[in-house]
Protein backbone atom coordinates (compact mmCIF):
# COMPACT_ATOMS: atom_id res chain seq x y z
CA UNK A 1 0.00 0.00 0.00
CA UNK A 2 1.23 3.49 -0.81
CA UNK A 3 2.05 5.93 1.93
CA UNK A 4 0.21 9.09 0.87
CA UNK A 5 2.39 11.39 2.92
CA UNK A 6 5.66 10.15 1.47
CA UNK A 7 4.16 9.23 -1.91
CA UNK A 8 1.42 11.77 -2.50
CA UNK A 9 1.33 11.28 -6.30
CA UNK A 10 0.82 14.98 -6.99
CA UNK A 11 3.15 17.86 -6.23
CA UNK A 12 0.32 19.97 -4.82
CA UNK A 13 -0.14 17.43 -2.02
CA UNK A 14 3.39 17.83 -0.67
CA UNK A 15 2.82 20.98 1.38
CA UNK A 16 -0.39 20.37 3.36
CA UNK A 17 0.95 17.50 5.55
CA UNK A 18 3.86 19.68 6.70
CA UNK A 19 1.60 22.70 7.17
CA UNK A 20 -0.71 20.58 9.34
CA UNK A 21 1.91 19.48 11.84
CA UNK A 22 4.46 22.32 11.67
CA UNK A 23 2.67 25.44 10.37
CA UNK A 24 5.30 27.82 11.79
CA UNK A 25 8.25 26.18 10.08
CA UNK A 26 9.83 28.30 7.33
CA UNK A 27 9.07 27.00 3.84
CA UNK A 28 10.63 29.82 1.80
CA UNK A 29 13.30 32.20 3.03
CA UNK A 30 13.23 35.23 0.72
CA UNK A 31 15.72 38.08 0.63
CA UNK A 32 13.71 40.08 3.15
CA UNK A 33 10.70 38.07 4.21
CA UNK A 34 10.15 34.47 5.14
CA UNK A 35 7.02 32.43 4.40
CA UNK A 36 5.97 29.63 6.74
CA UNK A 37 4.43 26.33 5.67
CA UNK A 38 1.11 27.52 7.10
CA UNK A 39 1.27 30.74 5.05
CA UNK A 40 2.36 28.93 1.89
CA UNK A 41 -0.44 26.40 2.26
CA UNK A 42 -3.09 29.12 2.74
CA UNK A 43 -1.76 31.35 -0.05
CA UNK A 44 -1.71 28.32 -2.36
CA UNK A 45 -5.38 27.76 -1.52
CA UNK A 46 -6.21 31.44 -2.07
CA UNK A 47 -4.62 31.33 -5.53
CA UNK A 48 -6.48 28.10 -6.30
CA UNK A 49 -9.86 29.55 -5.26
CA UNK A 50 -9.22 32.75 -7.23
CA UNK A 51 -8.21 30.78 -10.35
CA UNK A 52 -11.38 28.67 -10.07
CA UNK A 53 -13.53 31.77 -9.64
CA UNK A 54 -11.92 33.27 -12.76
CA UNK A 55 -12.94 30.22 -14.77
CA UNK A 56 -9.72 28.20 -14.79
CA UNK A 57 -10.61 24.63 -15.77
CA UNK A 58 -8.67 21.38 -15.26
CA UNK A 59 -5.75 21.25 -17.70
CA UNK A 60 -5.77 25.02 -18.40
CA UNK A 61 -2.35 26.64 -18.50
CA UNK A 62 -1.58 29.41 -15.98
CA UNK A 63 1.50 31.59 -16.46
CA UNK A 64 3.67 32.60 -13.49
CA UNK A 65 5.78 35.62 -14.36
CA UNK A 66 7.38 36.62 -11.07
CA UNK A 67 10.84 36.87 -9.58
CA UNK A 68 11.75 33.80 -7.52
CA UNK A 69 9.83 34.13 -4.24
CA UNK A 70 7.41 32.44 -1.87
CA UNK A 71 4.56 34.12 -3.77
CA UNK A 72 5.72 32.57 -7.04
CA UNK A 73 5.83 29.12 -5.40
CA UNK A 74 2.37 29.69 -3.90
CA UNK A 75 1.05 30.63 -7.36
CA UNK A 76 2.39 27.36 -8.82
CA UNK A 77 0.97 25.43 -5.90
CA UNK A 78 -2.40 27.17 -6.34
CA UNK A 79 -2.49 26.47 -10.08
CA UNK A 80 -1.80 22.83 -9.37
CA UNK A 81 -4.49 22.64 -6.69
CA UNK A 82 -6.95 24.15 -9.16
CA UNK A 83 -5.96 21.22 -11.44
CA UNK A 84 -4.31 23.65 -13.85
CA UNK A 85 -0.86 23.44 -15.41
CA UNK A 86 1.61 26.09 -14.37
CA UNK A 87 3.98 27.68 -16.87
CA UNK A 88 6.94 29.51 -15.26
CA UNK A 89 7.95 32.47 -17.44
CA UNK A 90 11.43 33.98 -17.50
CA UNK A 91 11.45 37.47 -15.90
CA UNK A 92 14.47 38.43 -18.04
CA UNK A 93 12.96 37.47 -21.41
CA UNK A 94 11.57 40.18 -23.69
CA UNK A 95 7.75 40.50 -24.00
CA UNK A 96 7.83 39.30 -27.63
CA UNK A 97 9.03 35.88 -26.46
CA UNK A 98 6.31 35.86 -23.78
CA UNK A 99 3.80 36.60 -26.54
CA UNK A 100 4.99 33.57 -28.51
CA UNK A 101 4.75 31.33 -25.45
CA UNK A 102 1.36 32.72 -24.37
CA UNK A 103 -0.02 32.02 -27.85
CA UNK A 104 1.59 28.58 -28.07
CA UNK A 105 0.05 27.22 -24.88
CA UNK A 106 -3.06 29.41 -24.89
CA UNK A 107 -2.45 31.28 -21.64
CA UNK A 108 -5.63 32.95 -20.36
CA UNK A 109 -4.33 33.74 -16.88
CA UNK A 110 -0.93 35.07 -15.84
CA UNK A 111 0.22 35.87 -12.32
CA UNK A 112 2.61 38.75 -12.81
CA UNK A 113 4.78 41.27 -10.97
CA UNK A 114 3.70 44.93 -11.45
CA UNK A 115 6.99 45.89 -13.15
CA UNK A 116 6.72 43.01 -15.61
CA UNK A 117 3.08 43.81 -16.37
CA UNK A 118 4.18 47.31 -17.36
CA UNK A 119 6.64 45.71 -19.85
CA UNK A 120 3.92 43.51 -21.33
CA UNK A 121 1.55 46.44 -21.61
CA UNK A 122 4.21 48.65 -23.25
CA UNK A 123 4.89 45.93 -25.83
CA UNK A 124 1.17 45.37 -26.44
CA UNK A 125 1.32 41.76 -25.25
CA UNK A 126 -1.70 40.65 -23.32
CA UNK A 127 -3.83 37.81 -21.97
CA UNK A 128 -7.45 38.11 -20.74
CA UNK A 129 -6.63 37.91 -17.01
CA UNK A 130 -3.62 39.24 -15.15
CA UNK A 131 -3.33 38.59 -11.43
CA UNK A 132 -1.01 41.30 -10.16
CA UNK A 133 1.19 40.08 -7.33
CA UNK A 134 2.18 43.27 -5.59
CA UNK A 135 0.72 46.29 -3.88
CA UNK A 136 -0.56 49.38 -5.66
CA UNK A 137 -2.98 49.89 -8.51
CA UNK A 138 -2.34 47.84 -11.63
CA UNK A 139 -1.55 49.85 -14.78
CA UNK A 140 -4.42 50.72 -17.11
CA UNK A 141 -4.84 48.10 -19.79
CA UNK A 142 -7.09 47.74 -22.81
CA UNK A 143 -10.77 47.15 -22.14
CA UNK A 144 -10.76 43.40 -22.90
CA UNK A 145 -8.09 42.74 -20.28
CA UNK A 146 -8.72 42.36 -16.59
CA UNK A 147 -5.98 43.09 -14.09
CA UNK A 148 -6.89 41.61 -10.74
CA UNK A 149 -5.17 43.42 -7.88
CA UNK A 150 -3.40 41.64 -5.05
CA UNK A 151 -6.26 42.16 -2.60
CA UNK A 152 -8.42 39.79 -4.69
CA UNK A 153 -5.90 37.03 -3.92
CA UNK A 154 -5.85 37.98 -0.25
CA UNK A 155 -9.64 38.02 -0.10
CA UNK A 156 -10.00 34.52 -1.56
CA UNK A 157 -10.62 31.57 0.74
CA UNK A 158 -7.61 29.93 2.36
CA UNK A 159 -9.47 26.64 2.86
CA UNK A 160 -8.38 23.49 1.06
CA UNK A 161 -9.71 22.91 -2.45
CA UNK A 162 -11.60 19.71 -3.09
CA UNK A 163 -10.32 18.04 -6.23
CA UNK A 164 -11.49 14.46 -6.26
CA UNK A 165 -10.85 13.61 -9.88
CA UNK A 166 -7.11 14.09 -10.11
CA UNK A 167 -4.56 11.70 -11.48
CA UNK A 168 -0.78 11.49 -11.12
CA UNK A 169 -0.67 11.46 -14.91
CA UNK A 170 -2.21 14.94 -15.13
CA UNK A 171 0.10 17.54 -16.56
CA UNK A 172 1.84 19.49 -13.76
CA UNK A 173 3.82 22.15 -15.64
CA UNK A 174 5.24 23.25 -18.97
CA UNK A 175 8.88 24.33 -19.22
CA UNK A 176 9.68 26.30 -22.36
CA UNK A 177 13.11 25.63 -23.80
CA UNK A 178 14.84 26.87 -26.91
CA UNK A 179 13.41 25.37 -30.11
CA UNK A 180 15.34 24.65 -33.31
CA UNK A 181 12.66 26.08 -35.60
CA UNK A 182 12.87 29.48 -33.93
CA UNK A 183 9.89 28.95 -31.62
CA UNK A 184 10.39 27.91 -27.99
CA UNK A 185 9.12 24.39 -27.18
CA UNK A 186 6.95 23.58 -24.16
CA UNK A 187 8.10 20.42 -22.41
CA UNK A 188 5.10 18.72 -20.74
CA UNK A 189 5.85 17.24 -17.32
CA UNK A 190 3.24 15.24 -15.40
CA UNK A 191 2.97 14.96 -11.63
CA UNK A 192 4.29 11.41 -11.89
CA UNK A 193 7.30 12.61 -13.96
CA UNK A 194 8.12 15.37 -11.49
CA UNK A 195 7.73 13.19 -8.39
CA UNK A 196 9.93 10.40 -9.80
CA UNK A 197 12.77 12.92 -9.87
CA UNK A 198 11.80 14.71 -6.65
CA UNK A 199 11.69 11.49 -4.64
CA UNK A 200 15.02 10.23 -6.02
CA UNK A 201 16.73 13.59 -5.47
CA UNK A 202 15.42 14.07 -1.92
CA UNK A 203 16.62 10.56 -1.02
CA UNK A 204 20.00 11.02 -2.69
CA UNK A 205 20.58 14.34 -0.91
CA UNK A 206 19.17 12.74 2.28
CA UNK A 207 17.04 15.85 2.75
CA UNK A 208 15.55 16.38 6.19
CA UNK A 209 13.46 19.17 7.70
CA UNK A 210 16.56 20.93 9.08
CA UNK A 211 17.96 21.39 5.58
CA UNK A 212 18.27 24.79 3.97
CA UNK A 213 18.26 24.32 0.23
CA UNK A 214 19.42 27.09 -2.10
CA UNK A 215 17.13 28.28 -4.88
CA UNK A 216 19.60 29.47 -7.53
CA UNK A 217 18.14 28.34 -10.85
CA UNK A 218 15.37 30.35 -12.53
CA UNK A 219 11.94 28.76 -12.12
CA UNK A 220 11.59 28.19 -15.88
CA UNK A 221 14.72 26.03 -15.71
CA UNK A 222 14.26 22.39 -14.63
CA UNK A 223 16.90 22.52 -11.89
CA UNK A 224 14.41 24.55 -9.83
CA UNK A 225 12.09 21.52 -9.52
CA UNK A 226 14.51 20.19 -6.93
CA UNK A 227 14.85 23.50 -5.07
CA UNK A 228 11.08 23.86 -4.78
CA UNK A 229 9.40 20.47 -4.64
CA UNK A 230 12.12 18.21 -3.22
CA UNK A 231 12.65 20.76 -0.44
CA UNK A 232 8.94 21.08 0.36
CA UNK A 233 8.50 17.28 0.22
CA UNK A 234 10.75 16.95 3.27
CA UNK A 235 9.54 19.97 5.23
CA UNK A 236 12.87 21.74 4.66
CA UNK A 237 13.46 25.42 3.81
CA UNK A 238 14.18 26.74 0.34
CA UNK A 239 16.44 29.80 0.57
CA UNK A 240 16.13 32.22 -2.33
CA UNK A 241 19.48 33.30 -3.74
CA UNK A 242 18.08 36.17 -5.76
CA UNK A 243 18.94 37.30 -9.27
CA UNK A 244 21.20 40.13 -8.05
CA UNK A 245 23.15 37.81 -5.72
CA UNK A 246 23.69 35.22 -8.46
CA UNK A 247 25.69 37.87 -10.36
CA UNK A 248 28.49 37.84 -7.85
CA UNK A 249 30.52 34.88 -6.61
CA UNK A 250 31.35 36.74 -3.45
CA UNK A 251 27.74 37.56 -2.67
CA UNK A 252 26.67 33.96 -3.29
CA UNK A 253 29.25 32.74 -0.77
CA UNK A 254 28.07 35.37 1.73
CA UNK A 255 24.48 34.18 1.28
CA UNK A 256 25.50 30.55 1.88
CA UNK A 257 27.35 31.49 5.06
CA UNK A 258 24.73 33.90 6.40
CA UNK A 259 21.81 31.58 5.64
CA UNK A 260 23.67 28.37 6.62
CA UNK A 261 22.68 26.79 3.31
CA UNK A 262 23.20 23.01 3.41
CA UNK A 263 22.27 21.85 -0.10
CA UNK A 264 23.07 23.53 -3.41
CA UNK A 265 22.02 22.68 -6.99
CA UNK A 266 23.20 24.83 -9.88
CA UNK A 267 25.04 24.87 -13.17
CA UNK A 268 28.83 24.62 -12.82
CA UNK A 269 29.17 28.29 -13.97
CA UNK A 270 27.69 29.57 -10.70
CA UNK A 271 30.04 27.40 -8.65
CA UNK A 272 33.00 28.54 -10.75
CA UNK A 273 32.02 32.18 -10.11
CA UNK A 274 32.25 31.50 -6.38
CA UNK A 275 35.70 29.95 -6.83
CA UNK A 276 36.93 32.82 -9.04
CA UNK A 277 35.81 35.45 -6.52
CA UNK A 278 38.25 34.02 -3.98
CA UNK A 279 35.51 34.16 -1.33
CA UNK A 280 35.06 30.41 -1.15
CA UNK A 281 38.75 29.89 -0.33
CA UNK A 282 38.73 32.77 2.18
CA UNK A 283 35.50 32.06 4.03
CA UNK A 284 34.76 28.43 3.20
CA UNK A 285 31.15 27.29 3.35
CA UNK A 286 31.16 24.64 6.06
CA UNK A 287 27.36 24.39 6.18
CA UNK A 288 27.24 22.97 2.61
CA UNK A 289 26.93 19.20 2.78
CA UNK A 290 25.56 18.34 -0.68
CA UNK A 291 26.38 19.93 -4.03
CA UNK A 292 24.46 18.86 -7.13
CA UNK A 293 25.48 20.25 -10.49
CA UNK A 294 24.07 19.78 -13.98
CA UNK A 295 23.43 21.54 -17.26
CA UNK A 296 26.95 21.71 -18.64
CA UNK A 297 30.30 19.96 -18.44
CA UNK A 298 32.23 20.85 -15.28
CA UNK A 299 35.85 21.63 -16.25
CA UNK A 300 38.00 19.26 -14.18
CA UNK A 301 40.48 21.82 -12.89
CA UNK A 302 37.62 23.89 -11.41
CA UNK A 303 35.94 20.81 -9.94
CA UNK A 304 39.22 19.90 -8.25
CA UNK A 305 39.42 23.37 -6.70
CA UNK A 306 35.78 23.25 -5.61
CA UNK A 307 36.12 19.87 -3.92
CA UNK A 308 39.29 21.05 -2.19
CA UNK A 309 37.52 24.19 -0.92
CA UNK A 310 34.56 22.14 0.40
CA UNK A 311 36.15 19.04 1.91
CA UNK A 312 33.04 17.98 3.86
CA UNK A 313 30.50 18.14 1.02
CA UNK A 314 29.27 15.31 -1.20
CA UNK A 315 29.21 16.04 -4.96
CA UNK A 316 26.90 14.67 -7.63
CA UNK A 317 26.97 15.22 -11.39
CA UNK A 318 23.36 15.01 -12.60
CA UNK A 319 22.45 14.60 -16.25
CA UNK A 320 19.36 14.79 -18.40
CA UNK A 321 17.63 17.10 -20.87
CA UNK A 322 14.51 18.97 -19.70
CA UNK A 323 12.52 16.27 -21.55
CA UNK A 324 13.68 13.57 -19.12
CA UNK A 325 14.56 15.70 -16.09
CA UNK A 326 17.46 13.86 -14.42
CA UNK A 327 17.96 10.39 -15.91
CA UNK A 328 21.60 9.73 -15.02
CA UNK A 329 23.73 10.61 -12.01
CA UNK A 330 27.30 10.17 -10.92
CA UNK A 331 28.55 10.54 -7.37
CA UNK A 332 32.02 12.11 -7.44
CA UNK A 333 33.65 9.99 -4.73
CA UNK A 334 37.07 11.58 -4.71
CA UNK A 335 38.83 14.61 -6.14
CA UNK A 336 39.61 13.77 -9.80
CA UNK A 337 43.30 13.36 -10.60
CA UNK A 338 45.19 16.10 -12.42
CA UNK A 339 45.31 13.94 -15.53
CA UNK A 340 41.55 13.28 -15.54
CA UNK A 341 39.82 14.53 -18.69
CA UNK A 342 36.17 14.44 -17.62
CA UNK A 343 33.94 12.90 -14.99
CA UNK A 344 31.26 10.40 -16.05
CA UNK A 345 27.57 11.31 -16.17
CA UNK A 346 26.98 8.11 -14.26
CA UNK A 347 24.24 5.51 -14.23
CA UNK A 348 20.50 5.52 -14.84
CA UNK A 349 18.45 6.94 -11.94
CA UNK A 350 14.86 7.68 -10.94
CA UNK A 351 13.72 4.28 -12.24
CA UNK A 352 14.70 5.18 -15.81
CA UNK A 353 16.14 2.67 -18.26
CA UNK A 354 18.73 3.74 -20.79
CA UNK A 355 20.15 2.28 -23.98
CA UNK A 356 22.83 3.41 -26.41
CA UNK A 357 22.16 2.88 -30.09
CA UNK A 358 23.75 3.48 -33.48
CA UNK A 359 22.10 5.22 -36.44
CA UNK A 360 20.13 2.10 -37.36
CA UNK A 361 18.77 1.83 -33.83
CA UNK A 362 20.89 -1.21 -32.92
CA UNK A 363 22.43 -1.35 -29.43
CA UNK A 364 26.15 -0.53 -29.62
CA UNK A 365 28.76 -2.64 -27.78
CA UNK A 366 30.18 -1.25 -24.51
CA UNK A 367 32.96 1.21 -25.24
CA UNK A 368 31.36 2.43 -28.50
CA UNK A 369 29.71 5.81 -28.90
CA UNK A 370 26.02 6.01 -29.73
CA UNK A 371 22.91 8.05 -29.03
CA UNK A 372 21.40 7.92 -25.54
CA UNK A 373 17.78 6.70 -25.38
CA UNK A 374 15.81 7.03 -22.14
CA UNK A 375 12.58 5.45 -20.99
CA UNK A 376 10.91 5.48 -17.61
CA UNK A 377 8.99 7.59 -15.11
CA UNK A 378 10.84 10.89 -15.67
CA UNK A 379 10.35 11.00 -19.45
CA UNK A 380 8.02 13.87 -20.40
CA UNK A 381 4.53 13.34 -21.76
CA UNK A 382 5.43 15.33 -24.87
CA UNK A 383 5.76 18.82 -26.31
CA UNK A 384 3.08 21.46 -26.24
CA UNK A 385 2.95 22.71 -29.78
CA UNK A 386 0.73 25.46 -31.19
CA UNK A 387 -2.16 24.62 -28.91
CA UNK A 388 -1.79 20.86 -29.09
CA UNK A 389 0.13 18.26 -27.15
CA UNK A 390 2.44 16.09 -29.24
CA UNK A 391 3.22 12.87 -27.39
CA UNK A 392 6.85 11.92 -26.84
CA UNK A 393 8.45 8.89 -28.42
CA UNK A 394 9.25 6.01 -26.06
CA UNK A 395 12.07 5.50 -25.49
CA UNK A 396 12.98 9.15 -25.86
CA UNK A 397 16.01 9.88 -28.11
CA UNK A 398 17.99 12.57 -26.30
CA UNK A 399 20.25 13.68 -29.16
CA UNK A 400 23.22 13.20 -26.84
CA UNK A 401 26.17 11.00 -27.81
CA UNK A 402 27.43 8.81 -24.99
CA UNK A 403 29.51 5.69 -24.31
CA UNK A 404 29.33 3.03 -21.62
CA UNK A 405 32.76 2.94 -19.93
CA UNK A 406 34.54 -0.15 -18.56
CA UNK A 407 33.02 0.26 -15.06
CA UNK A 408 29.49 0.64 -16.45
CA UNK A 409 29.37 4.40 -15.95
CA UNK A 410 28.24 6.50 -18.90
CA UNK A 411 30.62 9.01 -20.51
CA UNK A 412 29.37 12.07 -22.39
CA UNK A 413 30.47 12.83 -25.96
CA UNK A 414 28.45 15.87 -27.04
CA UNK A 415 25.38 16.66 -29.12
CA UNK A 416 24.11 15.23 -32.39
CA UNK A 417 22.35 18.41 -33.50
CA UNK A 418 22.62 22.17 -33.35
CA UNK A 419 21.92 22.57 -29.65
CA UNK A 420 24.60 24.17 -27.51
CA UNK A 421 24.85 25.10 -23.86
CA UNK A 422 25.58 28.64 -22.76
CA UNK A 423 26.03 28.96 -18.99
CA UNK A 424 23.99 25.80 -18.58
CA UNK A 425 21.05 27.10 -20.61
CA UNK A 426 20.30 25.16 -23.72
CA UNK A 427 20.27 27.17 -26.89
CA UNK A 428 19.00 25.85 -30.20
CA UNK A 429 21.13 27.60 -32.79
CA UNK A 430 18.13 27.62 -35.12
CA UNK A 431 16.22 29.85 -32.71
CA UNK A 432 19.06 32.38 -32.64
CA UNK A 433 19.44 32.24 -36.44
CA UNK A 434 15.70 32.71 -36.96
CA UNK A 435 15.65 35.72 -34.65
CA UNK A 436 18.62 37.30 -36.45
CA UNK A 437 17.08 36.68 -39.86
CA UNK A 438 13.90 38.49 -38.79
CA UNK A 439 15.85 41.76 -38.97
CA UNK A 440 14.90 43.37 -42.29
CA UNK A 441 18.56 44.16 -43.07
CA UNK A 442 19.78 40.58 -42.56
CA UNK A 443 19.76 37.98 -45.33
CA UNK A 444 21.28 35.01 -43.55
CA UNK A 445 22.82 34.19 -40.22
CA UNK A 446 24.74 31.23 -38.83
CA UNK A 447 25.17 30.82 -35.07
CA UNK A 448 27.49 28.44 -33.25
CA UNK A 449 29.38 27.99 -30.01
CA UNK A 450 32.98 29.14 -30.02
CA UNK A 451 35.20 28.70 -26.94
CA UNK A 452 32.18 28.46 -24.67
CA UNK A 453 30.52 31.55 -26.11
CA UNK A 454 27.69 31.98 -28.54
CA UNK A 455 28.76 33.70 -31.77
CA UNK A 456 27.10 34.50 -35.09
CA UNK A 457 28.19 35.24 -38.63
CA UNK A 458 25.74 37.48 -40.45
CA UNK A 459 25.24 38.34 -44.12
CA UNK A 460 23.44 41.66 -44.32
CA UNK A 461 21.70 43.30 -47.25
CA UNK A 462 22.23 46.71 -45.73
CA UNK A 463 25.91 47.74 -45.62
CA UNK A 464 25.06 50.38 -43.03
CA UNK A 465 23.83 47.81 -40.53
CA UNK A 466 25.88 48.05 -37.33
CA UNK A 467 26.58 45.33 -34.81
CA UNK A 468 24.87 47.52 -32.23
CA UNK A 469 21.69 47.61 -34.32
CA UNK A 470 21.80 43.80 -34.60
CA UNK A 471 22.26 43.41 -30.85
CA UNK A 472 19.38 45.81 -30.17
CA UNK A 473 17.18 43.73 -32.45
CA UNK A 474 18.22 40.52 -30.67
CA UNK A 475 17.44 42.04 -27.27
CA UNK A 476 13.81 42.52 -28.30
CA UNK A 477 13.40 38.87 -29.35
CA UNK A 478 15.73 36.71 -27.28
CA UNK A 479 16.55 36.25 -23.62
CA UNK A 480 19.98 37.72 -22.75
CA UNK A 481 21.84 34.39 -22.72
CA UNK A 482 20.76 33.74 -26.33
CA UNK A 483 22.24 36.96 -27.73
CA UNK A 484 25.54 36.11 -29.45
CA UNK A 485 28.58 37.56 -27.69
CA UNK A 486 30.49 37.90 -30.95
CA UNK A 487 28.76 38.93 -34.17
CA UNK A 488 30.66 39.17 -37.45
CA UNK A 489 29.37 40.73 -40.65
CA UNK A 490 30.42 39.09 -43.92
CA UNK A 491 29.74 39.78 -47.59
CA UNK A 492 29.30 36.09 -48.45
CA UNK A 493 28.87 32.87 -46.51
CA UNK A 494 30.90 29.86 -47.64
CA UNK A 495 28.77 27.14 -49.29
CA UNK A 496 29.04 23.44 -49.88
CA UNK A 497 28.84 22.08 -53.43
CA UNK A 498 25.13 21.54 -52.91
CA UNK A 499 24.74 25.23 -52.18
CA UNK A 500 24.05 24.82 -48.48
CA UNK A 501 25.75 27.07 -45.97
CA UNK A 502 29.00 25.35 -45.00
CA UNK A 503 28.94 25.47 -41.21
CA UNK A 504 32.27 23.72 -40.81
CA UNK A 505 34.10 26.25 -42.97
CA UNK A 506 32.37 29.17 -41.24
CA UNK A 507 33.47 27.86 -37.86
CA UNK A 508 37.03 27.29 -39.06
CA UNK A 509 37.22 30.75 -40.59
CA UNK A 510 35.96 32.27 -37.35
CA UNK A 511 38.67 30.50 -35.39
CA UNK A 512 41.58 31.44 -37.65
CA UNK A 513 40.52 34.88 -38.84
CA UNK A 514 41.42 37.63 -36.43
CA UNK A 515 39.37 40.24 -38.31
CA UNK A 516 35.96 41.24 -37.04
CA UNK A 517 33.56 43.50 -38.91
CA UNK A 518 34.41 44.44 -42.52
CA UNK A 519 37.24 46.94 -42.26
CA UNK A 520 35.63 49.47 -44.56
CA UNK A 521 32.53 49.62 -42.42
CA UNK A 522 34.32 50.58 -39.23
CA UNK A 523 35.37 54.17 -38.69
CA UNK A 524 38.92 54.60 -37.49
CA UNK A 525 38.20 56.14 -34.14
CA UNK A 526 35.71 55.12 -31.58
CA UNK A 527 32.72 57.40 -31.83
CA UNK A 528 32.04 59.96 -29.13
CA UNK A 529 28.83 60.91 -27.54
CA UNK A 530 26.78 63.46 -29.37
Amino acid at each position, binding site marked *: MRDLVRDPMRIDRLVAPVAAHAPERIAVQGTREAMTYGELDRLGNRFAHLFLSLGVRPGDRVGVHLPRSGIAIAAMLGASRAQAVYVPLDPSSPPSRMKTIAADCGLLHVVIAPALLANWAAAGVTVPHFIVAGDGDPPTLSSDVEAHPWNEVQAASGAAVENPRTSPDDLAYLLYTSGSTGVPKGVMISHRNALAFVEWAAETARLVEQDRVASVAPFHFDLSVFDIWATLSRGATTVIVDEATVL*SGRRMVERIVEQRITVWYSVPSALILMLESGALAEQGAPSLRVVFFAGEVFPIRHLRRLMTALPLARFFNLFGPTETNVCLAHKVREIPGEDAVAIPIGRATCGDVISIVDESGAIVPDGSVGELLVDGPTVMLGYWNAGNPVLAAHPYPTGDFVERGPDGEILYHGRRDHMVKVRGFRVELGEVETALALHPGILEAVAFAHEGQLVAVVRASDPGLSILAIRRHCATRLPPYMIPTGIRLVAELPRTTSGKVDRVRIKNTFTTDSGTAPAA*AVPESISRSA
Partner: protein
Amino acid sequence: MKDEDIRQSLREYIVSTWLSGDSRDFDDETDLTQAGILDSFSTLDMAAFIDDRFRIRLEPSDINAESFRNVSSLTCIVKQRLGNET
Protein backbone atom coordinates in the same frame (compact mmCIF):
# COMPACT_ATOMS: atom_id res chain seq x y z
CA MET B 1 42.58 60.42 -14.45
CA LYS B 2 40.69 62.61 -16.88
CA ASP B 3 37.02 62.14 -17.57
CA GLU B 4 37.69 61.62 -21.28
CA ASP B 5 40.34 58.95 -20.61
CA ILE B 6 37.88 56.98 -18.51
CA ARG B 7 35.22 57.26 -21.21
CA GLN B 8 37.67 56.23 -23.90
CA SER B 9 38.75 53.11 -21.95
CA LEU B 10 35.16 52.05 -21.29
CA ARG B 11 34.11 52.63 -24.91
CA GLU B 12 37.05 50.68 -26.28
CA TYR B 13 36.37 47.74 -23.97
CA ILE B 14 32.67 47.57 -24.80
CA VAL B 15 33.22 47.97 -28.54
CA SER B 16 35.92 45.31 -28.68
CA THR B 17 34.18 42.85 -26.33
CA TRP B 18 30.54 43.03 -27.45
CA LEU B 19 30.47 44.87 -30.75
CA SER B 20 33.24 42.99 -32.57
CA GLY B 21 35.10 46.27 -32.97
CA ASP B 22 32.21 47.99 -34.76
CA SER B 23 31.61 51.35 -33.07
CA ARG B 24 28.94 52.58 -35.50
CA ASP B 25 25.78 53.85 -33.77
CA PHE B 26 27.47 53.49 -30.37
CA ASP B 27 27.97 56.48 -28.10
CA ASP B 28 28.26 57.32 -24.43
CA GLU B 29 24.49 57.45 -23.97
CA THR B 30 23.70 54.08 -25.61
CA ASP B 31 21.60 52.06 -23.16
CA LEU B 32 23.71 48.96 -22.58
CA THR B 33 20.84 46.70 -21.53
CA GLN B 34 18.56 47.65 -24.40
CA ALA B 35 21.49 47.10 -26.72
CA GLY B 36 21.74 43.50 -25.51
CA ILE B 37 25.26 44.23 -24.26
CA LEU B 38 24.87 43.99 -20.51
CA ASP B 39 22.91 41.22 -18.84
CA SER B 40 23.40 39.63 -15.46
CA PHE B 41 26.48 37.79 -16.65
CA SER B 42 28.23 40.41 -18.77
CA THR B 43 27.66 43.00 -16.04
CA LEU B 44 30.04 40.98 -13.92
CA ASP B 45 32.59 40.93 -16.72
CA MET B 46 32.28 44.70 -17.06
CA ALA B 47 32.70 45.18 -13.30
CA ALA B 48 35.85 43.02 -13.32
CA PHE B 49 37.26 45.08 -16.21
CA ILE B 50 36.62 48.32 -14.30
CA ASP B 51 38.29 46.96 -11.17
CA ASP B 52 41.39 45.89 -13.12
CA ARG B 53 41.69 48.81 -15.50
CA PHE B 54 41.22 51.60 -12.97
CA ARG B 55 42.67 49.76 -9.97
CA ILE B 56 39.56 50.40 -7.90
CA ARG B 57 37.16 48.16 -6.11
CA LEU B 58 33.49 48.43 -7.00
CA GLU B 59 31.23 47.61 -4.09
CA PRO B 60 28.20 45.35 -4.65
CA SER B 61 26.03 48.44 -4.15
CA ASP B 62 27.78 50.13 -7.11
CA ILE B 63 26.63 47.39 -9.46
CA ASN B 64 23.07 48.30 -10.35
CA ALA B 65 20.96 49.15 -13.37
CA GLU B 66 21.41 52.89 -12.82
CA SER B 67 25.20 52.98 -12.68
CA PHE B 68 25.59 50.42 -15.46
CA ARG B 69 23.13 52.14 -17.80
CA ASN B 70 25.64 53.63 -20.25
CA VAL B 71 29.22 54.82 -20.64
CA SER B 72 28.41 58.18 -19.01
CA SER B 73 26.92 56.62 -15.88
CA LEU B 74 29.81 54.14 -15.67
CA THR B 75 32.24 57.04 -15.93
CA CYS B 76 30.53 58.71 -12.95
CA ILE B 77 30.86 55.65 -10.77
CA VAL B 78 34.51 55.17 -11.73
CA LYS B 79 35.24 58.81 -10.93
CA GLN B 80 33.53 58.50 -7.55
CA ARG B 81 35.59 55.45 -6.69
CA LEU B 82 38.79 57.10 -7.90
CA GLY B 83 37.92 60.00 -5.65
CA ASN B 84 38.78 62.68 -8.19
CA GLU B 85 35.47 64.21 -9.01
CA THR B 86 36.52 66.93 -11.42
